[in-house]
């Protein structure tokens, strides 16, 4: 393999505007002088196929896309392909979109260019990002795995045609989707809805999206939304799971010490350090919420958390940002982020095998020396 091939960066652009994609291909193809191999996708379904077939380095996603928008797609991309660098382009660069994109793993949130000069600036930014290979270790991207339902939903919403092959140990299944409708499913000698329910009741395994070929028969005739709901109902009732081989059980985790209801927040997670400045105070605090999860985002312990999913997403974001920050400045291993407000304190810790989130309310009685003016909102 030549050096040029090794250094070739594979860049995928996802945008529903074909003219924009063609302009990108023409201009950025020229500017990259052979450094980039450019892939184009007009919808998320096509993008997923490209991602499956090519080792994409950088994905540039339009935020405003019909059916499955860029933020939804970004969330899926972040879970299934965590090591692909992600950038979003938006014609309406509002703060809400920016925050949502950053939360879902985008490295950059850029305003969509209005003329070629702006586009060249964006190219320069993307080229720098593509040259930087993220470190594939740590918590990042190994949190939640994408679910089968996510992929089926996306294929159907996009009116795609494909075959979803599912493997769990020695067990295999297939779901045939044509123009966004589920036509046929087969698994373990079963066909139709029974097979579909079997496949969707799996708690683990792998799946691959293949190009569509006609199924041997049409065994399913119904709207995909109802089919997925029915499968979920069957699964919840535990009616169709007993014969399926389960994946290997997760590695045993030692029981975690449970927090007493009232503790000093600094005693919970943080090891003692030699210096604790006033901004990160030692004021006594009452624990309001706690979440402990594995590196794959499985909840090990939850206490009074109103939105566990949001906390896990936050840990995922933190894992990614802490790596970016640490790599650039060569700071060593990341331990935790401490966040301090007037009345609350949050500690989020990322370790190779777990994430911990603790939110606490600080005691209301304030001592002046511990509450500098700048900490007040």
């Amino acid at each position, binding site marked *: 393999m030549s050096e040029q091939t090794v250094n070739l960066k594979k860049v995928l652009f996802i945008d529903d505007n074909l003219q924009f994609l063609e302009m990108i291909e023409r201009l950025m193809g020229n500017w990259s002088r052979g450094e980039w191999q450019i892939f184009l996708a007009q919808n998320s379904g096509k993008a997923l196929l490209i991602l499956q077939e090519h080792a994409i380095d950088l994905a540039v996603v339009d935020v405003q896309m019909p059916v499955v928008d860029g933020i939804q797609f970004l969330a899926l991309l972040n879970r299934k392909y965590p090591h692909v660098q992600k950038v979003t382009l938006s014609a309406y660069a509002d703060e809400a979109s*920016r*925050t949502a994109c950053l939360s879902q793993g985008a490295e950059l949130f850029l305003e969509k260019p209005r003329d070629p000069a702006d586009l060249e600036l964006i190219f320069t930014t993307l080229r720098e990002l593509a040259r930087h290979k993220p470190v594939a270790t740590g918590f990042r991207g190994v949190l939640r795995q994408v679910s089968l339902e996510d992929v089926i939903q996306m294929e159907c919403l996009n009116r795609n045609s494909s075959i979803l092959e599912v493997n769990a140990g020695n067990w295999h299944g297939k779901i045939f989707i044509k123009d966004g409708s589920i036509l046929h499913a087969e698994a373990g000698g079963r066909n139709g809805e029974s097979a579909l329910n079997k496949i969707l009741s799996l708690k683990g395994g792998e799946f691959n999206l293949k190009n569509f070929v006609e199924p041997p028969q049409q065994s399913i005739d119904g709207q995909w939304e109802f089919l997925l709901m029915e499968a979920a109902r069957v699964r919840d009732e535990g009616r169709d799971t007993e014969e399926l081989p389960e994946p290997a059980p997760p590695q045993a985790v030692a029981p975690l010490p449970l927090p007493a209801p009232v503790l000093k927040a600094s005693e919970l997670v943080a090891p003692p350090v*030699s210096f604790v400045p*006033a901004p990160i105070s030692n004021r006594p605090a009452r624990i309001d919420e706690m979440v402990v999860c594995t590196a794959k985002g499985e909840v090990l312990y939850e206490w009074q958390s109103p939105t566990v999913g949001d906390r896990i997403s936050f840990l995922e974001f933190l894992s990614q*940002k802490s790596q970016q920050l640490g790599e650039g400045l060569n700071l060593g291993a990341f331990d935790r982020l401490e966040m301090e407000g007037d009345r609350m304190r949050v500690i989020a810790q990322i370790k190779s095998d777990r994430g911990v989130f603790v939110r606490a309310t600080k005691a209301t009685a304030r001592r002046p020396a511990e509450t500098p003016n700048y900490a007040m909102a």
Partner: protein
Amino acid sequence: MKEHIHNWLTEKMRVNNVLACGIRSPDRKTFTRSQSAQFTPVALEHACRCLSDTFHVINSNRFPAQLIRWVYDNYFVYGFLREDGYCLAVLSRRTDLVISQSDLETIVAEFHSLPV
């Protein structure tokens, strides 16, 4: 060019044990100063962006935090947010040669009253 911000950051580099610092404005301009080749302007600019992104996500999660501290093996990265969206990043060692508490308080108080 906001010369006074550069000047203020340069002045802060004289504070004991401040290794590097930077300010990022709401319009994404970044000003940085460092006394170590380890902390290049590009890396510091990137760090300020990470900090600003983090404040965005923290606020979207309804944690009203005005100050954060990233804890690494050997370093602290402090982040401070003003109500007008300006962020300050200050880098120090974690285990020895730390910034004193009073120096840190002074830096933050000055940052909050720094004209922009």
